[in-house]
């Protein structure tokens, strides 16, 4: 049966290929082609010059990522499909890609001193980040299950390597291995789901799958395939019950890598989840809505409770990121334009806050040693008032306290849930964010009211200061000028929905 199907598909494609094959339109994929080409050039330069060029390569890579943002924005392509239906460029993709690229560039810049001090100064580091980011872009632009899979593998493979990049540290190696084994499992789930969908829909392109479901033939096989694909993507965004790897990997991986994990791949995977569910599986909304509501509630609850007992700041931020995924999924559960807009706004704000918080973690260094205990923050308000202020801004914002940015993220998401008659979901969301506020504010209390310990190493280098200033200003004054993100998110959401 399957082999007949395969041959059918093959035959159709052969007929197409033989009769009317012409070179595809490369322009929509220009950002990816640009990044891929540059990464090869930089890799070659790195191999010939060696590790002394690392700092320069890191700067060049972050400039390249910013340049890709400029290319994407200047192309501004809406709804163009190329490479025989494998690739789509639309406004939603443009918005998400810009987020991912900016996240990558900022982590590279703020992690530079860590990379230098912790013996990770090898030229492959920025290049692997560049590869991973390219993979994420491909993944966001995928318009076919096969191109989704190869993009996902490209980014994951590079991420496994950077997680284990500090190879003389047992924790880093362990986190890389754990991430690899569990990531391979989730890839297996995705592939299994994709084969089922292919078998029961007769095609891998989103269009073919969407047509079959729209015609009302939601067969059981297709449904099982959908569940597997959703589970695999839930793993990538680290939503409960597929979150087990997150705390260990976040704790073990080098801090800049953790910051990158929390910012870029999560947003990319969320974009893929949205595109898959809202695109081909849109007409199976009633089915996948239950799944999304369940993992959303589970993530919010676990994120709120499990973080309370943590003593390690990176572990705490890992649980906090699980919770944030839960809040973002509330918007997806409403499944309409307003909900998707809410998710996009939430993710943008989440990225800014997370990068800022990890920037603060990167500053936690005493006598040349990195420290990660929350209690080491005691009395930070005395020893370094500006840092204490900016850290508190991020924490309050994550807790969702107005008028900081995090409040607006939650506001739009919960509003969409209420308008979509998911009042129960919104109530649970509000309750868990109140519980979550406890552990965020506990850190603020440690910073401001606990007995001071010896202060962190000074001076804080210029890259981290710049990052903290930028993200701090955006978080604190988002309410003054929110329109770029909100209107951008609205346009992106509109481009996605039929």
């Amino acid at each position, binding site marked *: 049966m399957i082999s007949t199907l395969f041959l059918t598909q093959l*035959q159709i494609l052969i007929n197409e290929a033989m009769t009317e094959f012409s070179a595809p339109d490369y322009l929509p994929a220009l950002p990816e082609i640009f990044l891929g080409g540059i990464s090869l050039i930089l890799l070659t330069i790195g191999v010939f010059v060696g590790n002394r060029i690392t700092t320069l390569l890191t700067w060049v890579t972050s400039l390249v990522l910013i340049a890709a943002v400029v290319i994407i924005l200047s192309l501004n392509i809406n709804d163009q499909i190329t490479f025989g239906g494998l690739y789509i460029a639309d406004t939603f993709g443009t918005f998400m890609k810009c987020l991912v690229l900016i996240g990558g560039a900022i982590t590279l810049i703020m992690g530079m001193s860590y990379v230098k001090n912790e013996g990770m100064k090898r030229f492959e580091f920025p*290049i692997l980040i560049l590869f991973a980011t*390219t993979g994420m872009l491909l993944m966001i632009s995928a318009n076919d299950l096969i191109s989704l899979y190869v993009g996902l593998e490209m980014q994951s*493979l590079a991420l496994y390597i950077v997680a284990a990049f500090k190879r003389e540290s047992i924790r880093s190696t362990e986190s890389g291995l754990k991430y690899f084994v569990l990531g391979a499992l989730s890839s297996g789930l995705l592939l299994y789901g994709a084969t089922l969908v292919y078998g029961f829909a*007769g095609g891998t392109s989103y269009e073919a799958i969407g047509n079959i479901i729209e*015609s009302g033939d939601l067969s059981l096989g297709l449904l099982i395939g959908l569940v597997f694909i959703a589970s695999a993507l839930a793993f990538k965004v680290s939503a409960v019950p597929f979150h087990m790897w997150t705390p260990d990997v976040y704790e073990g991986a080098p801090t800049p890598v953790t910051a990158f994990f929390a910012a870029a791949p999560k947003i990319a995977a969320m974009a893929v989840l949205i595109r898959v569910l809202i695109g081909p599986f849109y007409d199976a909304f009633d089915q996948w809505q239950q799944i999304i509501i369940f993992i959303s509630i589970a993530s919010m609850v676990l994120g709120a409770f499990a973080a309370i007992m943590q003593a390690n700041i990176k572990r705490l931020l890992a649980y906090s990121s699980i919770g944030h995924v839960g809040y973002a999924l509330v918007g997806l559960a409403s499944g309409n334009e307003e909900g998707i807009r809410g998710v996009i706004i939430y993710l943008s704000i989440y990225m800014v806050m997370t990068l800022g918080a990890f920037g603060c973690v990167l500053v936690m260094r005493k006598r040349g040693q990195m420290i990660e205990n929350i209690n080491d923050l005691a009395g930070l308000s005395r020893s370094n008032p500006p840092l204490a202020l900016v850290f508190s801004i991020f924490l309050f914002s994550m807790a969702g306290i107005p008028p900081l940015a995090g409040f607006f993220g939650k506001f739009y998401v919960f509003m969409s849930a209420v308008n979509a008659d998911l009042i129960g979901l919104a109530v649970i969301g509000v309750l868990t964010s109140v519980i979550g506020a406890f552990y965020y504010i506990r850190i603020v209390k440690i910073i401001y009211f606990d007995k001071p310990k010896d202060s962190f190493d000074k001076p804080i280098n210029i890259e981290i200061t710049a990052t903290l200033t930028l993200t701090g200003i955006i978080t604190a004054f988002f309410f003054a000028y929110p329109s770029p993100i909100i209107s951008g998110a609205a346009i992106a959401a509109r481009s996605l929905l039929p």
Partner: protein
Amino acid sequence: MIVEQITFYIFAVITVISGVLVIGSRNPVHSVLFLILAFFNSAGLFVLMGAEFIAMILIIVYVGAVAVLFLFVVMMLHIDFSKLRAGFTRYLPIGCVVGIILLVELILVLTTGTVDFNIPKNVISQIPNPEAISNTEALGNLLYTQYAYLFQIAGFILLIAMVGAIVLTHKKRNEVKKQKISDQVNRDPNTAVTLHKIETKEGGTWKSD
């Protein structure tokens, strides 16, 4: 027709027997060799089905790479396989029970018709004509045209895997002696070689200064 059937049964029987021997034989090296035999015979089965491309891939990838890798692992790492097999008889009953439960469940699912695995009519839209074009040719036509995009990304993935292997395992070791061509070429022959004139019968007692 009869020749085809005989060939099929030969390949099938050998595949099954060597499959049993892979788990049965005491020597792990023998297991790997039987695995290779099983792969070869399955490749034969694929050829009989008209899937010559998969047959070739099976031999190239599984025999050429995977089985040889197994062989390396078995021979390089001294794993005590008798120890691994120690609990075999003890766990045999529970293993059988689990296996039988799974089998019964599978049969129930497939025979009672509770699950409808019928593919909707509109999925299969065209009856292919496998005689018109061979497998390999068809794949080749698609891979470099329609799927060139995926082909390129697969190349990138392999490159990342290679970079990763080097990043995570390669260590620069200073104690290893290496040949440096430039040093050898740049050596001054006047300082590198000295000529001594040694008198007859004094070779045994001569010492360099």
